[in-house]
Each structure stands twice: as C-alpha cells, then as structure tokens.
C-alpha cells in the first residue's frame, strides 16, 4: 500500500511537474502576442535588456522601465507620486499578466512614456517572457 502510494506520487510528479513548468512560460496573452509577432521566438534575455535599457525618445522623467519599477523585477517599485508598485516578476506577483485589457493598457501607456512610441509585439513578448521567467 505504502509502496503504491510512493509510486503514484512519483508518477504524478513526473507527469504534472513538467506540465506546470511548461505552463508557467506560456499564457493566452503571450500566445496572442506571439500571433501578432508572426510566431517569432521570444527571448527573456532581450526582455531583460528592454527592461533595463535607457531610452531618449520618451518623457524626460522616465528614461527606463526601471525608473519606476526599480532595477530588479523581484522588488517593489515606486511611482513618481510615491505609490508602491508590486514586483513585475510573476513569481512575486502571480496575479500579473492574466488580464489582457490591463496588459494592453499598461504596455500602451508605459511604452509611450518610456520609449516615446508603442512597443512592437516582439518587444512585448520578450518583456513578458522575461517577467514570467523571474
């Protein structure tokens, strides 16, 4: 009986764990953006660069995502008006990137604010892939 339980547990773990890990890197929102991007492979590395890079085309007070979100996606950020921003990393804020309307709104606003233009689907995908890996 006990042995059986262990076998079941092992079976369960070997089946479900890789599945949930694969799910962590994917989401309906990301799938939709991937379609828009013409199926390119997204890169967490490029997403990291996008997040930390300084831009000159946007509004002067916010040259980078990190201006408000802070250097690490694991940490709490702060708006210019002094309000706390929950960490961007999915591991710290699991409720993030689940509401398509919300995601679209903040990409629109913040890309315009920081880059001075809307982000491309590839940039959005890279960004989300990075945050979902964090």
């Amino acid at each position, binding site marked *: 009986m006990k042995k059986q339980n262990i076998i079941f547990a092992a079976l369960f773990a070997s089946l479900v764990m890789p599945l949930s890990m694969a799910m962590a890197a994917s989401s309906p929102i990301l799938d939709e953006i991937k379609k828009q991007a013409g199926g390119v492979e997204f890169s967490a590395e490029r997403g990291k660069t996008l997040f930390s890079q300084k831009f000159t085309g946007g509004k002067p007070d916010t040259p980078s995502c990190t201006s408000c979100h802070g250097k690490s996606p694991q940490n709490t950020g702060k708006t210019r*008006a*002094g*309000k706390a921003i929950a960490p961007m990393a999915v591991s710290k804020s699991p409720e993030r990137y689940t509401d398509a309307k919300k995601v679209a709104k903040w990409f629109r*606003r913040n890309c315009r604010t920081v880059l001075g233009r809307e982000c491309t689907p590839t940039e959005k995908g890279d960004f989300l892939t990075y945050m979902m890996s964090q």
Partner: protein
Amino acid sequence: MKKAIFTLTGAFVLAGMLSSSFAYADGPDWVPPIRDKLVKAECGACHLTYQPAFLPAKSWKKIMAGLDDHFGEDATLDKDAAQKIEAYLVTNSGRRKWNDSWGKPPIRITKLRWFVKEHRGEISRRAMKKAGTMTNCKACHLAAERGNYDDD
C-alpha cells in the same frame, strides 16, 4: 451719524473679506473622499486619489483633456472610462466656479497659494525624504485617502 454707520459697515465688509480670504488661505482640513470604484481604481493606480474638491471643474476638464502627458506620463484611458471619470470629478469639484478672467485654471494642487502657505516651513528634511515628493500626501497625512488632512 450716517458717516459713522458707513465707516462701520465698511469695516465689517473689510473684516468679512479678510476672514474669508484667510479661511481660503488655510485650505480645507477635510474634503469628501472619493467613493466611485472606477475613479478609485484608475486614478489610484499611480497616486493618491486626490479629492475633486481640491480643484475647480475647469481644472479637472483640463487634466482629463491632457492625459497623454499627465504630469510627464502617458495616462490615457479608454473613452468610456475617461468620460465617466471626468463626470465624477466635475460633479464633485471644488465649489468655486472658475472665472476665465482669473487666467489659466490650475492643475497642480501643490502650487495653489493656500497649499504652499500651509506647508511652508512645516516639513522636516527627514519627512520630505520619506515622502519623496509633495504629491505623496499620505506620507504625513495618514488618513488622506479618506479626505482627512487634519493631522498636521
């Protein structure tokens, strides 16, 4: 006698004007808090939900018309939300009707004369460092979100 009455009335009128301007110069200790869920969620995503009573209707219209550059950030909303929020802000705006001859309607509460006067010399360097910015009311006025600014 008539002269005396005139002088007396004049004095009263003057006193009345002075005291009302003083009352205004003090700024309100309490304003009605925001009760609308949408306004709370959208405006409150980035900053304290500054109560509409702090600015006249004209100011709120100007702020809502300029959300693409909202104090240095893009804060654009979808049309439906923007209309609902503007209606709430205008309906609950400060009672003073804005007269165009007064010039441009203010958009920064922190630049209003009573605000500047009330805060002058009141904030220690340590408190300012903690708040980070004058727009972070809650750093000192703990119940600011509820419209209570009486704790200074």
